[in-house]
């Protein structure tokens, strides 16, 4: 494995919703095996950036490059095929409500990867084991806690063997006591070498596993650095102010 291979890259990404300019020229690179964390105040465009990197909506400027391939250079490219190699976990648990945990994970394997049922099941169970949900496979989403649902959502993304996993504040919708079980799983995945780009404000997680933290505000990335530097000595005043509030609030953790 080439250590510096860039799996996913956003190049000068701009995004406007009508007149509202949400992203103002963002460039970001995710290398294979690394865990990158994005922090920043709400409304700064983090979710929008992740959706664009996940090819869930197109940028108005710039482009996305997946494994050296400019995905918007030609409209002959099958975006669905590329999407299936980019895992996505949303802030809200977005499990398919009519399917059990197991079937949620199997669906992409069967429908997109065209796997046989037993093959898909084996693969799905493997992914569910990674998130410690193997005992809940026959439960429907409504029968699971928010934390369990997010873990199934992670398994659903992992089962597709994605080159990179994008997570948009996966614990933000959870009660505090359910947060840790999801964070723990995320830490395990990071240590296994899964490539991840995570928007999160769980500072202990970022400290523990992030190779780099980027601070985003008002549609721009103001600085990226290793956790020690960015959390202790942010260079930009905006990041300073933001971290003061964030760590001040959650200082004990």
């Amino acid at each position: 494995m080439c250590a510096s291979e860039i799996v996913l890259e956003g190049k000068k990404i701009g995004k406007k919703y009508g007149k509202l300019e949400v992203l103002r020229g963002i460039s970001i690179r995710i290398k294979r095996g690394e865990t990158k964390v994005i922090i920043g105040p709400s409304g700064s465009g983090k979710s929008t950036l992740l959706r664009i990197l996940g090819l869930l909506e197109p940028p108005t400027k710039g482009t996305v490059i997946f494994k050296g391939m400019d995905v918007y250079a030609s409209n002959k490219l099958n975006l669905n095929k590329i999407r299936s190699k980019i895992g996505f976990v949303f802030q809200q648990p977005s499990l398919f409500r009519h399917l059990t945990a197991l079937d949620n994970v199997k669906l992409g394997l069967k429908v997109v990867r065209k796997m046989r049922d037993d093959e898909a099941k084996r693969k799905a169970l493997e992914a569910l084991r990674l998130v410690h949900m193997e005992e809940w496979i026959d439960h429907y989403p409504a029968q699971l806690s928010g934390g369990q649902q997010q873990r199934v959502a992670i398994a659903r993304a992992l089962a597709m063997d994605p080159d990179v996993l994008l997570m948009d504040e996966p614990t933000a919708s959870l009660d505090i006591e359910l947060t840790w079980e999801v964070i723990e799983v995320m830490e395990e995945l990071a240590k296994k070498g899964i490539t991840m780009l995570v928007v999160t404000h769980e500072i202990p997680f970022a400290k523990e596993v992030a190779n780099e933290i980027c601070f985003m505000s008002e549609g721009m990335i103001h600085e990226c650095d290793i956790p020690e530097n960015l959390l202790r000595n942010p260079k930009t005043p905006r990041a300073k102010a933001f971290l003061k509030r964030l760590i001040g609030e959650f200082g004990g953790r």
Partner: protein
Amino acid sequence: MSSFSWLSWWSPFIFKGFLMTLKMSAAGLTGGFVLGSLLALGDVYGGKITKAVVNAYVEFFRGSPLIVQLLMFYYGIPALTGYEWSAVTAGAITLMLNSAAYQKGYFKGAMESIPKDQLMAARSLGMSTRQIVLHIVLPQTYRIVIPAWSNEFVSLTKSTSALLIIGIMELTATAMTISALTFKPLQVYSVTAIIYFIWIYFALKIIEYIYERIRIPGLGETKTL
């Protein structure tokens, strides 16, 4: 006068009429189910033009009486196109077109209650629009919609009585004939009413049973009230 002896002689005809009623409502409901689903998909996920076309269609079929629609298609289509069709075909098609307009409303309501995040999640797995509709949208829509949809079952079953104006011998038409021949309208129409009543409430029980059987915990349970 209060003798029901006519009933044993005429019951095979009544039964035949009832079967025709079943046949026609089944045709209208299934055809309307398919077309109504497509209309709902068009209205919920389609572009501006699709939406406008769907809404014009729905307004026409929901805004005018079924009787007028039946007459218009039964007499009008052969006159306009030269294609001769039987009353049963014309009736079945008209019922289907009519029911689709009503079923579309129920399907649309159910579709809109599916959270958008799920569609985005399906997209992120690499599923195509067709696959998302087939595997995510429709399976949930059909489960959620059943209680509301049962209204259309009831209303369409009753509407099949309109078919008598194009000469289809469904239950009400049969009753009209028998009543004219036996001079016992009170009895004949009472029996007819009882048959409709029993069938509709019996079928509603079946629908409820199916709903309970295929329902999935937490799906489509409304949070209001």
